[in-house]
């Protein structure tokens, strides 16, 4: 399995990468960790004439806190997320999610920016980003713009990234102390994409749900934000009946395709079950 021939470019700075991208236009693809792109190129589902490797650009790496935000360079790898003390303490949902992605070797190479940009509904980070209310910094020839995760994922392999743009940074508002979280992922085996998964972030106040975000993986053309389920839960005591109703509302927006992981009905049911579990765990972790 060998990709089509292409020219390889290894820019050392973001401006150089942007210049190459505008020079080669839609003939070019960005290479991050390569663990979605290279398999697609080997199968010749992707055949770029130019590959622009972001792997030598130091400014695209790193995890830091700035004010009330965590800022993560797009080229930060899954294992770097998992090992980050700052994230373990401040954004445990991201660490929990990264730990459920693929296997150790893939996690040494696969990047947060690549997982978000790829646009496969099976990628786990898009739903996690929706649950964390993240936003993305996109650099283009005309400068930078910051776009919220909510609204970024437009369809399969289709995001709000414009031609000529590179995602440089992921920004996550530090969740308030006492926030509960969970990423519940059903997979057939290690290294598998989700049959269905749910990301939940929530705050309780006086025994009722003050705020909640719920997002689903791999049960639609893209990660789905379960808005009706969120609206329903806000202000309610998260008892068994309320959580079951929220799970039902989450199921109502699912439209998974039948494949080896199961048929539409099964996957929809599993999305409901993952939502139920994630809400339960998140409630148990939240301060009352």
């Amino acid at each position, binding site marked *: 399995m*060998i990709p089509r021939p*292409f020219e390889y470019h*290894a820019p050392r700075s973001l401006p150089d990468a942007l210049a190459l991208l505008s020079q080669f236009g839609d003939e070019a693809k960005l290479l991050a960790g390569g663990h979605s792109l290279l398999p697609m190129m080997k199968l010749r589902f992707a055949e770029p004439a130019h590959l622009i490797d972001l792997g030598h650009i130091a400014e695209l790496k790193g995890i830091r806190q700035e004010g009330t935000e965590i800022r993560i360079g797009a080229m930060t790898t899954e294992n770097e997320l998992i090992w980050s003390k700052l994230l373990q303490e401040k954004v445990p949902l991201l660490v929990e999610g990264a730990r459920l992605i693929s296997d150790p*070797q893939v996690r040494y*190479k696969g990047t947060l920016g690549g997982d978000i940009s790829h646009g496969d509904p099976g990628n786990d980070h898009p739903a996690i980003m929706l649950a964390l209310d993240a936003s993305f910094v996109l650099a283009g020839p005309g400068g930078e713009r910051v776009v919220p995760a909510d609204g970024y994922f437009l369809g399969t392999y289709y995001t709000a990234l414009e031609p000529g743009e590179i995602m440089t940074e992921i920004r996550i508002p530090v969740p308030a102390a006492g926030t509960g979280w969970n990423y519940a992922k059903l997979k057939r085996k*290690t290294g598998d994409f989700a049959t269905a998964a749910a990301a939940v972030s929530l705050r309780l106040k006086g025994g009722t749900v003050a705020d909640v975000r719920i997002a689903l993986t791999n049960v639609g053309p893209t990660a789905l934000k379960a808005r009706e389920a969120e609206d329903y839960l806000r202000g309610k005591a998260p008892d068994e009946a309320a959580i079951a109703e929220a799970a039902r509302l989450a199921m109502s927006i699912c439209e998974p395709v039948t494949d080896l992981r199961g048929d539409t009905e099964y996957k929809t049911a599993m999305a409901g079950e993952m939502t139920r579990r994630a809400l339960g765990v998140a409630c148990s972790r939240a301060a009352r």
Partner: protein
Amino acid sequence: MSKKQMVSFKLNDKEVDMVVEPRELLIHTLREKLQHTGPHIGCETSHCGACTVDMNGMSVKSCTVLTVQCQDADVKTIEGFAQGGELHAIQEGFMQEHGLQCGFCTPGMITRTYRLLQENPNPTEEEIRYWMAGNLCRCTGYQNIVKAVQYAAKKLRGEPVQTSHPLMEEAKA
């Protein structure tokens, strides 16, 4: 064909300079051009881990890395483990604990074990299973691989080691 490119990297502590097409995968450069046939091709689809090599302090699947990505890299393969005819502690662990049968997955398993033990010299069984999950073995059932990693970890920590298969010890005596 596209323009070939020169790539220089370190392979088991020796400098190598290669001229490759950008589309060439590291596993193919290693096996076909550098005659390092220890890393195996099990699946060629990033699933099995048989092609695992160590690159810049990371375990990577060399079927999913381009050779041109290795410019200035430090690459270690199974060929770099035994020194002066002496097995590396990890190889000894796999031998003593029967961590292999057909041996096809073994170069990848050992190379992955190396990086795991650099990061975590004293892993629990659960940690071994979680952090070795990118390497598939169709023979052993993994029990003896876990024991092999534990044996190697002990030896590398400088603690006395004992095989859990005493018959081997007797045969040696």
